[in-house]
């Protein structure tokens, strides 16, 4: 298969509203890898919050909009493991597989990629010329890890970062950060108890920063780090790869 060169960026609502740096980093990485990036301006959300909360009718309406927005895309890339799994795994639950919409879901799901998967597995890029002085820990986001089964692509990119010392994060792949979408506000005590464990692990690792590939986890982890006055900061792997490292005094 020829490598797709025209890429439609599925920004994700979280990156769009809360952290445009993530989306800019994704654009930069894709352009540097030789892709032309298109950003469909009518995009909003994939419907994941409604779907995960049990509101499937509402999620279906939002999914329909998404399908329309990305209808003509050659490849769809998104800097979030959970939003990519929403499209690739859970859209199927919303439509009859044999219906026209069901077939459309299958067609677009196949050409939707999480950012690091696209860079590493599709474009074959691991060295993006990144540079970072410090200790980096990687938090494996649950949806990227388990719904998409991705264990290697983020690490392949991280290993090529010049100057970075990768430190082991205890429970990186086994301990959820506790975000869980609406779970974080439905059962906040449990969510933050899980977060506390993640923060302790980050502190124990001695990392200067922790990177992940999901804006949701990062919202949770960075919220915990700053509240607890921890030293480390949390941001998207793509930001690390493009030198968009937040100023230490940002908090």
């Amino acid at each position, binding site marked *: 298969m020829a490598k797709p060169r025209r890429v439609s960026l599925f920004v994700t609502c979280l990156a769009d509203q809360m952290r445009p740096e993530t989306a800019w980093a994704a654009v930069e990485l894709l352009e540097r890898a030789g892709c032309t990036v298109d950003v469909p301006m009518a995009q909003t959300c994939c419907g994941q919050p409604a779907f995960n*909360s049990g509101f499937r009718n509402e999620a279906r309406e939002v999914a329909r909009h998404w399908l329309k927005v990305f209808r003509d895309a050659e490849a769809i890339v998104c800097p979030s493991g959970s939003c990519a799994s929403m499209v690739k795994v859970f859209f199927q639950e919303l439509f009859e597989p044999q219906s026209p919409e069901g077939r459309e879901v299958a067609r677009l799901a196949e050409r939707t990629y999480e950012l690091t998967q696209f860079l590493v597995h599709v474009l074959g890029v691991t060295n993006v010329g990144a540079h970072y002085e410090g200790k980096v820990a990687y938090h494996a986001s649950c949806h990227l890890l388990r719904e998409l089964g991705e264990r290697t692509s983020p690490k392949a990119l991280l290993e090529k970062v010049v100057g970075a010392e990768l430190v082991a994060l205890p429970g990186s792949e086994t301990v*959820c950060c506790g975000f869980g979408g609406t779970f974080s506000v439905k059962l906040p005590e449990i969510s933050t108890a899980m977060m506390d464990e993640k923060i302790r692990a980050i502190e124990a690792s001695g990392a200067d920063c922790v990177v992940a590939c999901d804006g949701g986890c990062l919202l949770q982890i960075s*919220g915990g780090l700053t509240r607890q006055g921890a030293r480390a900061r949390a941001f998207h792997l793509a930001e690390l790869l493009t030198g968009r490292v937040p100023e230490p005094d940002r908090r």
Partner: protein
Amino acid sequence: MHVTSDKFSKNAADALHDPFLQGALQRATGKFVNERLRAVAEYPGFEALRDQGRAIKQEALDRLPELLEQFEEKVIERGGFVHWARDAHDANQIAINLARSEGVKVIVKSKSMTTEETNLNHALTEAGFEAVETDLGEYILQLDDDYPSHILAPAIHKTKEQVADIFDRRLHEKNPPDAGIPGLNTIARRALRTKFLSAQMGITGANFAVAETGTIVIVENEGNAALSTTLPKIHVAFVGIEKIVPRFNDLAVMLKLLPRSATGQRMSSYTNFLTGAARAGEEGPQKLHIILLDNGRTKIYADEKLQGSLRCIRCGACLNVCPVYQKVGGHAYGWVYPGPIGAVISPQYLGLERGHQLPFASSLCGACYEVCPVKIEIPHMLLELRNRVVEENTKATGRPAKRTFFEALSFQLFAVAARRPWLWGLGSAIGRRLLRSKASGGTVGKVELPVLRKWTSERDLAAPAEQSFLEQWKQRSGSKGGRA
């Protein structure tokens, strides 16, 4: 037992504030998780074994009616009796009638989640029998009028100091200083031995029921199931209809999967194979009665999306790895089946009304699916149940029930906006501005606004961007003259 599943969030909050429980949970689940990892790592091809386990249990479900009949036939052939129980009450009544007709006074029980499900102990006591749990953990709980908080390690929530206190109060036996856990074991063993010798009936569950041979298999580590099924003259087994496996050979797979997943053992200390009643010249019970229990299982069986939950072999692995279970323990789930699998099956057994909170007791991290020896898609089933809870909430009146009114309205607005980019852009710009007005130094601290209060009580919220990415992108494309 008193069901409190509808109070999950309150139960959970209590559990989080119990330092003893937190310590006990952390130690126990940590140990189970590590032991399992070790046992799995030393068995190359464990993943393939999980596929086989799944296939065997799924085949059993696909052929369930036929296999159950075959099982019954084989048990009868070997001199046993089979009873069919529609629900918990039926099953308990069958056991009570058997005990009455045989003049039984003392009954020994070995650990069985199925009899917890039917609340058998309570029924037996009401009917005037002395029923004694013989699994150490269950015995402790029985003495304390408590109930299990873990499928495998029922008394996981009790410390050894608490156990010493229970023995002191209920058995009037003081554990000598420095005797520790072995001392407690000695006390329990002494008390239980007299029960084993005086019991006329032994009641157990079963881990597997083999259709091909009519064999039931009980896996255990204390030897109490072996004693319960050999010393008394009557053995009664409570067996859920989903415990069936087609062939004896299937046990070669299942008996590798179960102990490794459950306790990280290659093999349990005791694996009891019981086929029929004792024949002339053999030791063991002269009478074997097997009670096949439905109690809602056929309803799950008929449910295409959730049928797979009947594959469960109750290994407990999903509990141990679950970050929610690790934090709140088993009692928070408010009924006999806790943890991720409990969150799937309890709402089905209890009904959505009483179980409505449980499907939401998960961050959907998927650790449960990753360890499940029979590959039950727990996170996907939780999502399915969440949808059913939402539908149930609106079904009766056509309008969302009070407890979800605000949420339902929010998601309706969300769906309206998400299909109209201009409205979405407008709404989110207002939201961003509001949040930024509450921020200082790049983060939003504690804010007393609905929903936000729940987020910000224990964590900050990184302040949103002044301009969304899409707005920024539009400017860049504009200045470059590119298409937007």
